[in-house]
């Protein structure tokens, strides 16, 4: 019973943050702020939906003693880990490339990177 509520809560949190990420992607004014929304919110949301999957697989394992559900949970965990790892690197690469290609942050109070002459 508690597992079902946990699944619902995790799924709802994940969906809410994914939605916020996409809304931020559509709403923010320039590239860097959009990247804030997509990187943080969608990674967090996807990790939470994966957590729901892990909780469900554990509850399935407890009800039917079948070791393949443990394998399912472990693989889902590896997928979430790889997702967080690669998303961080990828967004850093995009931000660096955008700044090098001349896209400056349009509303910005300070830009130390441009002052550093890079």
């Amino acid at each position, binding site marked *: 019973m508690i597992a079902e509520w946990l699944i619902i809560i995790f799924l709802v949190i994940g969906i809410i943050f994914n939605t916020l990420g996409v809304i*931020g992607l559509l709403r923010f004014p320039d590239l860097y702020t959009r990247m804030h929304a997509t*990187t943080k919110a969608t990674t967090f949301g996807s990790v939470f939906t994966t957590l729901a999957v892990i909780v469900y697989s554990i509850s399935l394992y407890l009800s039917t003693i079948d070791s393949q559900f443990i*394998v399912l949970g472990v693989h889902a965990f590896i997928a979430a880990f790889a997702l967080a790892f690669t998303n961080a690197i990828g967004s850093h690469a995009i*931000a660096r490339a955008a700044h090098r290609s001349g896209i400056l942050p349009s509303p910005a109070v300070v830009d130390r990177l441009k002052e*550093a002459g890079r």
Partner: protein
Amino acid sequence: MIAFILTFLLSLFVYLVLTAGSGNIGLWSASELTAGIVLSLLTAAVARNFLCRARNYRMANPLRFLLIPIYVIGPFFLEVIKANLDVAYRVITLRIRPGIIRVSSDLKSDLGIFMLANSITLTPGTITVDIDEHTHDLFIHNINVGEGEEAAPVIRDHELFSIADLPQWIRRIAE
């Protein structure tokens, strides 16, 4: 040689995690263990110059490895939750004050810089934009530069985080 052994052990660990629950020697069957050892030897032969490129074997200490999951589950996750609530607030209200600031850290090792940069990207309203290859200063796009912070040419790394002192944790793990 040490690089070979370390890569072998790490890849064997990954393979055993992937194939857990296949038999009854522990969690694995005999053929999976044999195949894991052979494939890990192959991986070590291919990738030994990649994983230990810096020839810095400080991370071979298992205690440091145990600290990484504690770091990820504990302080890092709290910061992630706070950062996401912050981003949610800014998505809804559009109250932003962006800017690129310069952050200095006295981390030296590659792993330390890597962990700090990724923690900064995933946590407190900031994205790592660029890195100075010599002084290891990070250029960071902050979505909400605090009042008066734009005047300071360089800010320290622990001033970014509010709940837990993540750079201190990283220093404990990687330095």
